[in-house]
């Protein structure tokens, strides 16, 4: 079965500094990978996905994610964090050849300090 590990509970970063949120996945086949963001009292919002192609995926609001097959990682990055980036971030994986289930990590709280 697929699974995701997000090793850090909280990531603190100063405004303007680079932001990295780590994700390690496990699947038996090739992965579909996703990042979602959740603001207080709201549902999850899609940020980025990796299906095939370039290992560096660029998304909205300056976010990007880097896929590394050999290390089974899909880290989320942003070169310069904003206070408004403070939120809960979830990594999720689905096995490309498996069932229709998406496995979510436990989430990382990102706090951007002004």
């Amino acid at each position, binding site marked *: 079965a697929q699974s*995701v590990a997000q090793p850090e*509970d909280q990531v603190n970063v100063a405004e303007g500094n680079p932001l990295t949120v780590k994700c390690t996945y496990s699947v038996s086949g090739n992965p*579909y990978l*996703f990042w*979602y963001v959740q603001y207080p*009292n*709201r*549902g*999850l*919002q*899609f940020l980025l*996905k990796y*299906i095939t192609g370039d290992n560096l995926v660029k998304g909205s609001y300056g976010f990007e994610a880097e896929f590394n097959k050999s290390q089974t990682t899909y880290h989320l990055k942003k070169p310069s964090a904003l206070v408004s980036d403070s939120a809960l971030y*979830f990594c999720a994986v*689905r096995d*490309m050849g498996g069932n*229709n*289930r*998406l496995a*979510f*990590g*436990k*989430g990382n709280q990102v706090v951007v300090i002004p």
Partner: protein
Amino acid sequence: NAGVTQTPKFRILKIGQSMTLQCTQDMNHNYMYWYRQDPGMGLKLIYYSVGAGITDKGEVPNGYNVSRSTTEDFPLRLELAAPSQTSVYFCASSPEGNQPQHFGDGTRLSIL
């Protein structure tokens, strides 16, 4: 576009009561999902559906039931509420299984 709409937003139940959490989407998506979110635990899949008339169990289906009579609606039923079902419930939909999911804003359920 309303997207995915969940009702009610909040509810308090007594142990043993039953209720239905409503979910509707207006994007004509084939796939629909129900998750529960507990603090520090991420999201756990309860049930999902790949189309009208088809449902399947997820990771934590015990104590819940679903139906999918139309493309738009995917209600979640709790028959005998238990304190362990206190959680935030999210409904989501996607065009296909490998596409990003669109989430509702959740139903916060407390069982006392």
